[in-house]
């Protein structure tokens, strides 16, 4: 393997790992935000029904 290949491998490993982590965080965040929204809406409608 040429020396350049090691350099390339090291830098792509870093960016691949960071990007994959970012994408996973984003997906998780979106799913959680949707869940919070639905729970809050449910709580809101319960309050209205109670009044």
């Amino acid at each position, binding site marked *: 393997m040429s020396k350049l290949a090691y350099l390339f491998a090291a830098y792509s490993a870093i960016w691949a*790992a960071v990007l994959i982590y970012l994408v996973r965080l984003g997906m998780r*965040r979106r799913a959680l935000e949707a869940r*919070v929204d639905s729970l809050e809406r449910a709580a809101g409608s319960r309050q209205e029904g109670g009044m």
Partner: protein
Amino acid sequence: MGIAMKKTLDIFFPAAALAAVISALAAVFLYAPVERTMGLVQKIFYFHLGSAAAAFLAFTVVLVSSVFYLVSRSPRWDTVALAAAETGVLFCTLVLITGPLWARPVWGKWWVWDPRLTTTLILWFLYVGYMVIREALPGPRGALAAGVFGILAYVDVPIVYFSIRWWRGIHPVVIRGGNVGLDAGMIPPLIISLAAFVLLLAALTRERYNIGNLELRIQQLEVSSKEDTP
């Protein structure tokens, strides 16, 4: 902290991290001189060291927030500890990947049992163990256990380092390479890379922290919705 302030920080950290990473790349590839014996491979060193600095900083954050959590019992501190542990493991993994990729062409070996390398590997094992506790024990019990382990692991790391050094001191060290004689031109790119990785760590940890807070919020909402419905 006001909502406006929070929103600003949510934008500031990723933007600063992105800008810093781009300038670090530019400094490493356009400004830094090519090392005479190691050649271009030496450029791995900047980001390798950056990841190492980020990992150690993250684990220090885990220690501090674990102590604060055990004392104050505020779930916020626990969320910070969890976020920093996860990003710390990420950067520690990157250190362990880029290290051998640098060592192989320079030393001719992927791995050497030198104190620094061995300690980094043990560090990785310790914080993977921390994440295992977090996965296996949800709720306040897991938070307490993880807080205890976060303190224990951090205190253990210097002990591990020195015991390996004393241990190796008995035998002659076989490979003594990688004396990184830093050229003056290499110092600015190194500093920029370190700053870039610290900012990257801050941005990722903050994002992970926000997710942890969302999870806390969901728990609260679920508890209150159970209380409402008879």
